[in-house]
């Protein structure tokens, strides 16, 4: 059940340009499923910030978040230290239905700050015995993170916008070259990337996860809606019905 908890920061590390990895201690860690987020309160900020879960260690009762400095909120979050406490609402939102799906081969496609939730997903898929192929896109070499971690789970390909690492270009360029035979794809990243990926993989079954500026984060304020493909006058809430959606379910704007 969704709960507000004051939890301790176990570690706080810079892992790439403007990118931080924070491990948090919580009795609810094992409740967090791949794709879900936590809603974090920050000192001197009116609104909480949604941050997706990048990993869970059920034994240790910890979970990991990875975020990039994007605005004032994430800048503030980057200044916390191990030993500090964070006021967090969790678990929030929908998740990738790893348990329910039948599949042998999954394609993971992540862009920038959309990469973290896909790590926890890829790990869960691998544990289920699914073959995982990963394609990740970053701005430049300095922004790349988690490459080795993904490599341990399966073949991993990197693209950078400026070509300073991996292939120069976009994740879609790598997908074209690979044209892998897959059962499902799973994608998270900036909207233009999601649009390109869902178009390219229109024939495949897939799930995407979305981001939006949030108010409540729990489904009451209608700040975070996304229109539905089958009827654009209807919408779903990213914080409650999402952030994970079936790829053809919503209109990406």
């Amino acid at each position, binding site marked *: 059940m969704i709960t507000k908890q004051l939890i301790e920061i176990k570690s706080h590390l810079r892992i790439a340009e403007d990118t931080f990895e924070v491990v948090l201690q919580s009795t609810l860690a094992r409740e967090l499923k791949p794709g879900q987020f936590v809603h974090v309160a920050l000192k001197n900020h009116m609104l*909480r910030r949604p941050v997706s879960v990048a990993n869970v260690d059920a034994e240790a009762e910890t979970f990991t978040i990875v975020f990039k400095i994007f605005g004032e909120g994430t800048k503030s979050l980057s200044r916390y230290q191990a030993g500090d406490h964070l006021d967090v609402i969790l678990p929030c939102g929908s998740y990738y239905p790893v348990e329910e799906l039948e599949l042998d081969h999954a394609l993971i496609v992540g862009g920038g700050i959309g990469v973290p939730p896909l790590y926890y997903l890829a790990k869960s898929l691998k544990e289920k015995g699914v073959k995982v192929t990963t394609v990740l896109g970053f701005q430049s070499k300095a922004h790349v993170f988690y490459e080795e971690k993904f490599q341990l789970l399966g073949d991993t390909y990197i693209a950078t916008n400026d070509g300073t690492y991996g292939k120069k270009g976009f994740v879609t360029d790598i997908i074209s070259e690979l044209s892998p035979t897959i059962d499902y794809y799973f994608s998270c990243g900036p909207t233009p990337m999601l649009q390109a990926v869902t178009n390219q993989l229109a024939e495949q079954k897939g799930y995407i996860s979305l981001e939006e500026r949030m108010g409540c984060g*729990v489904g009451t304020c209608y*700040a975070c809606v996304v229109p539905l493909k089958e009827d654009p006058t209807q919408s779903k809430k990213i914080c409650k019905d999402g952030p994970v959606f079936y790829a053809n379910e919503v209109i990406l704007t």
Partner: protein
Amino acid sequence: MNLTTTLPGLSLKNPVMPASGCFGFGKEYSQFYDLSDLGAIIVKAATGQARYGNPTPRVAETTSGMLNAIGLQNPGVDAIIKEELPFLRSYDTPVIANVAGSTVEEYVQVTKALNHSQDIAAIELNISCPNVKEGGVQFGTDPELAKEVTYQVKQASNYPVYVKLSPNVSNIVTMAKAVTDAGADGLSMINTLTGMQINLKQRKPIIANKTGGLSGPAIKPIAIRMVYEVRQALDIPIIGMGGIITAEDALEFLLAGANAVAVGTANFQNPLACPEIIQELPRVLEQYGFQSVEEAIGKGHVNG
């Protein structure tokens, strides 16, 4: 400590209720605490038909507050009566419905539909939404229009009518008088103040609607001043709101002349904001020399 307070048609176990639009229809927050703890609940706006609302982004954080331009998204009054309000039946707390519209006819239609619901105790007439092109704030900034819509809704309603005032006016007392003359049973104040925030990198307003309504602690002094002015001029029950985070803030509204208070934006920061304020209120009242909520109402006025 006696926390009770009375408003027309409502006798409240305590003066604290969530504000419209900041609590949905209660379901989500019922996961965090027992809604029966609340003095009352004001639910999200209802319009005649379902509304989609504005494009996103719809919210932005500001210094000590936030902007929102939701645009009155709601499933329409009939769906609200059928699918949302019954959930609140199981809680021992009165529900106030928030009525919105683009025309006087729509306001009256929504009001009449709500007459058929047994699940509410009063309506809050929202003539102050700054985020819709038609209606909304236009009714809340023109005293003649405000009078007309209040009169028509009051005629149509079986329930007490609280008119929610907009702060986007130069003289709040004129507006308060206009709706009081038209038969309002009480006032609810204030709604959000129109604002804007521009993203420096993108060189454009953050909110897709460009402007949004400012809420949160940033607006509290304005809300306090307006409640004070209206209390000075009129003898009408007031639900005060705007930037309440703590029990001290709630007491400040009582001193300014509010008979009860509503908590909006604070729910987003802290889902337990309302019960925590209720829990703290006895201590704060006592600290400042009051034996009850009733005793504190209006006590901030220097000339009595």
